[in-house]
């Protein structure tokens, strides 16, 4: 029973959602939106467990005075402060909550994102070596596109920008399509295996 009931629920949900796709009737649409609503609520409930784990992890660190424990205090207090501000004083456009979002959350996000520029440079330097035919092609394609899309590209050869665009639009497109079609089969097979209960590692074990 401990395995059959969850498996049955999984099977029913999977089949019902597939059938729903083919029925344009209002009742089916209504059903779909109800289920979506429930899913959203379930996501929110799981957050409680997850936050519980986070609090547990950091409070153990603080209690046992593990390495870097003072930073755990930063996480816990900033989390509590932000949650309380948002829960009790609202999240409207001109609230303190939004102000913190814009001046703390947003710049932190944007800066982490901006690190990518540095990492692209170091990854390209380290990895773009003409070790084999494949690596050389990777290198050459990156090279042509990087030069071709820049203003100075036309001085190296006036046809370079067009060639760079050609690579983007044809060989690149072909490879992406091939990968996407393959992925579609993999994903569909995985989803079917889940629904049919062939793949059940989410229940743990195979027995």
């Amino acid at each position: 029973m401990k395995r059959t009931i969850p498996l049955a629920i999984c099977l029913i949900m999977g089949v019902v959602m597939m059938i729903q796709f083919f029925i344009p009737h209002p009742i089916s649409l209504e059903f779909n939106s109800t289920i979506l609503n429930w899913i959203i609520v379930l996501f929110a409930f799981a957050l409680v467990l997850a936050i519980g784990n986070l609090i547990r992890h950091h409070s153990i660190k603080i209690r046992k005075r593990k390495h870097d424990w003072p930073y755990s205090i930063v996480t816990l207090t900033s989390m509590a402060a932000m949650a309380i501000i948002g829960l009790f004083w609202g999240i409207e456009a001109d609230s303190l909550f939004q102000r913190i979002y814009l001046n703390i959350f947003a710049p932190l996000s944007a800066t982490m994102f901006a690190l990518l520029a540095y990492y692209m440079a170091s990854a390209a330097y380290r990895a773009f070596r003409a070790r084999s035919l494949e690596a050389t092609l990777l290198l050459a394609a990156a090279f042509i596109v990087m030069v071709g899309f820049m203003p100075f590209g036309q001085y190296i050869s006036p046809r370079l920008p067009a060639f760079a665009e050609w690579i983007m639009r044809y060989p690149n497109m072909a490879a992406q399509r091939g990968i996407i079609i393959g992925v579609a089969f993999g994903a569909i097979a995985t989803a079917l295996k889940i629904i049919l209960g062939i793949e059940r590692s989410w229940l743990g074990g195979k027995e």
Partner: protein
Amino acid sequence: MKWYDRITQIDRRIIYLLLTLFIILPLFIPFKIPQNVMPQTQQLFDFVDSIPPGDEVVLLALDYTPQTAPECHPMAIALLKHCFARKVPVIGVSFDPQGPGLAVEAITSVIREVNENARTREDSVIYGTDCVYLGWKSGRVAALLQMGESVPQVFPVDYYGTPIDSLPLMLRVGNYKDVAIAINIASAAYPDDWIRYPQSRYGVKVGAGLTAVMAPKYYPFVQTGQLSGMMSGMKGAAEYEHLIVKHGYTDDSGTAETGMNSQSMIHILIIVFIVLGNIGYFFSRRGVKQ
């Protein structure tokens, strides 16, 4: 350590430092790398450049977020400068909830700049007569369709709460018939809806300004004519800035063009590092063989 081993193992911090310098320097030392203008940017410029002044308006949908501002904001600025210089009225709208902040900033800053340099009434831009910002509305698709019938019905008041019928510009703009082109500057797939509804149902000309990551998806629409031109990424913005300077509509190039200098420098830097790495690799492999 041999020289060729050394250039295969440059410390990443040196790369990072050089990269930072190469971004900062062009921001202070302006220089010009002539732009090669991509055909889709040229197409958009030509379209806006051929709108007869004072008759039809340009509808500017500003739907980009702070994260993508380095790419999209200069596009909005350049377009506004171009329209104002040609006396083409502009109506701004936003359908992304994060849009209005940056949209207001773009519009007010360009108006201020134009008016500072203006000597006569003819040269200046007056809010309400030459330009209006209508603000944000939810339900994008419904609003897009409704605007085909009547813009005032969707936006009874502008962003600042002024009733539409007290704005002279809005008195002569009823619906898409009075719109020469609608240009959507967006960091999400919003141009899809502009193509699907105003373009195909009402025959509105649609242009787009997109981040570099999104742009390739929209090439086919330019080809079929569903988009009457497109700017892609910071490069597209720089090209547009370059075009308005070249045609004498303004004399200072905007942030994208200086940003583009940094871009070019960094591309050159990365290419130099890749080349160095490969030279080192080539010689060290020969060294091993011998």
